[in-house]
């Protein structure tokens, strides 16, 4: 395991960068958002902004915070490392097996507790890392033509909108849901392989069903997003193969002797549960994040993921299993 501590790392220009692992890992004032991507000639850590080399060897801006106790930055076999800094690339002079360089991506998502000590992965190139997180392309200020309002939805509010439709056929509430979900549903449908027109059609029908089924929404069972996602997914499956997925009615005679809920399940509010999941996804090591993205956003089969990434099927399955087991641990063990 890598060990990351605090301190100053020299850069080849003669400058220095501060490394701080007290609260997440920071390089100067940039957070490390994805750590330990094994590239063909080193290891890449993605940080959230461009670090420019100081002009005229001006080192004042990169002193470590004296209030934070620091030790030197150590990787694998230990010992302080010296980095080259060239525009936004940091590279160690040492080209031994601990070879490591740092590369910034401009558009990435801030992560509070990056898994800097993640197990290094092989075969993941920087080019692919751009696609790790679905919203990378739509960050403000970066090449993006289509940005919907609001990065993360307030699930309580979205749930209120659905309840308003159920209670009084509230069109304004529906329009609000539509503006947030319609462009996202269309995007995920297209990512899953639908053509633009087909995706538009499924999205529109799903939104009609959101209106019609609003009374069935039960926020103790699913968040607004989960409920709407499953409606769109079921609509897609219906159209694709006429498979029926009826909603389970707890009053059905079948359930008289069957427990409705697993024992000891944590109860969260609408926003808490999504928050834990979101936080967990953002801290996944890159190789697991990529698979989670393929399985849960692009809706690919394990087989298709294995083929696309040229990875053994067993590896895809076991990595996803591990990622989901840890998520369940987070959800069951999180202190609230």
């Amino acid at each position: 395991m890598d060990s990351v501590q605090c301190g100053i790392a020299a850069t080849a220009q003669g400058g220095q960068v501060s490394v701080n692992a007290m609260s997440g890992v920071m390089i100067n004032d940039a957070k490390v958002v994805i750590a330990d991507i094994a590239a063909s000639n080193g290891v890449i850590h993605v940080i959230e902004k461009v670090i420019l080399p100081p002009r005229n060897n001006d080192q004042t801006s990169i002193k470590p915070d004296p209030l934070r106790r620091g030790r030197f930055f150590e990787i694998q076999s230990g010992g302080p490392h010296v980095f080259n800094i060239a525009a936004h690339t940091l590279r160690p002079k040492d080209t031994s097996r601990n070879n490591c360089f740092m590369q910034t991506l401009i558009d990435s998502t801030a992560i509070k507790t990056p898994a800097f000590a993640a197990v290094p992965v092989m075969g993941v190139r920087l080019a692919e890392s751009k696609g790790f997180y679905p919203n990378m392309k739509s960050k403000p200020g970066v090449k993006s033509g289509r940005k919907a309002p609001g990065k993360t939805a307030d699930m309580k509010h979205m749930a209120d909108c659905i309840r308003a439709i159920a209670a009084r056929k509230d069109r304004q509430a529906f329009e609000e849901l539509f503006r947030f979900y319609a462009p996202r549903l269309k995007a995920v449908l297209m990512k899953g392989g639908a053509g633009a027109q087909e995706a538009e059609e499924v999205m529109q029908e799903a939104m009609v069903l959101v209106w019609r089924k609003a009374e069935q929404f039960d926020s103790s069972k699913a968040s607004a997003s989960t409920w709407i996602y499953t409606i769109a997914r079921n609509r897609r499956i219906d159209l694709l193969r006429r498979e029926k997925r009826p909603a389970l009615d707890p009053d059905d005679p079948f359930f008289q002797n069957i427990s409705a809920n697993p024992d000891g399940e944590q109860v969260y509010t609408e926003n808490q549960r999504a928050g834990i999941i979101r936080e967990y996804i953002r801290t996944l090591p890159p190789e697991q994040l990529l698979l989670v993205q393929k399985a849960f956003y692009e809706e690919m089969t394990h087989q298709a993921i294995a083929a696309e990434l040229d990875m053994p099927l067993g590896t895809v399955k076991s990595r996803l299993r591990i990622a989901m087991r840890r998520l369940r641990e987070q959800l069951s063990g999180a202190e609230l």
Partner: protein
Amino acid sequence: MITQHLSDDFLIEYANGALAAPESLVVGNHIALCAECRARVETFEDVSAVLLEDGNTEAISADALDAVLSRIESPADIESPADEADAEPRIQFDQATLELIPPPLRSYLGDSLSALNWKRTGRGLEEVSLLREDDVRISLLRIRVGQKVPSHTHGGEEFTLVLSGGYSDGDTHYGKGDVSVADGEMDHAPVADDDGPCLCLTVRRGSTRLTGPIGRFLNPMVRG
């Protein structure tokens, strides 16, 4: 107490809608019986929902909202399988059927259990074929009390979900709600419990091959 669950692989593909329909039927009926796996599927749906919230947006057609708003006013607009599935079943099942057959399986049954066309397919073994398509066979299987099923292997995977009663296969016992996944390699010979008949949903891919000394003679019959 359900002890034999489906692995996350199936549950993930079910949650993201990528799993084929026959396997989805097994998952859907297992999670109707199994609160633990149902919670897992719901967690996986939550993961997709979070990625959806944080995901890209795609430009929608300019009149999309108007189109949807006009459709929500015309009640008979969407004739969808989803609506059909939510509607009251056309068939009036008897109480025994309603208690034994999970809701996701009911649309595959043309009638109550006792009125189905059960066929004897072996000693103490009855089967109703619910669907046969390409290389997939979906059946209900009824095994007589204490009956041993001839040992067999499969051309592809065989899913067995216990709906009532139970059976043992080697050292493993399968009770109500338990599911077994046998691959093409597995040679097994289930024995029904001796306290009642065992009702199972089976989904098989590929052909079944009997492997016992007498069973081999019967192969042409079971494959028909």
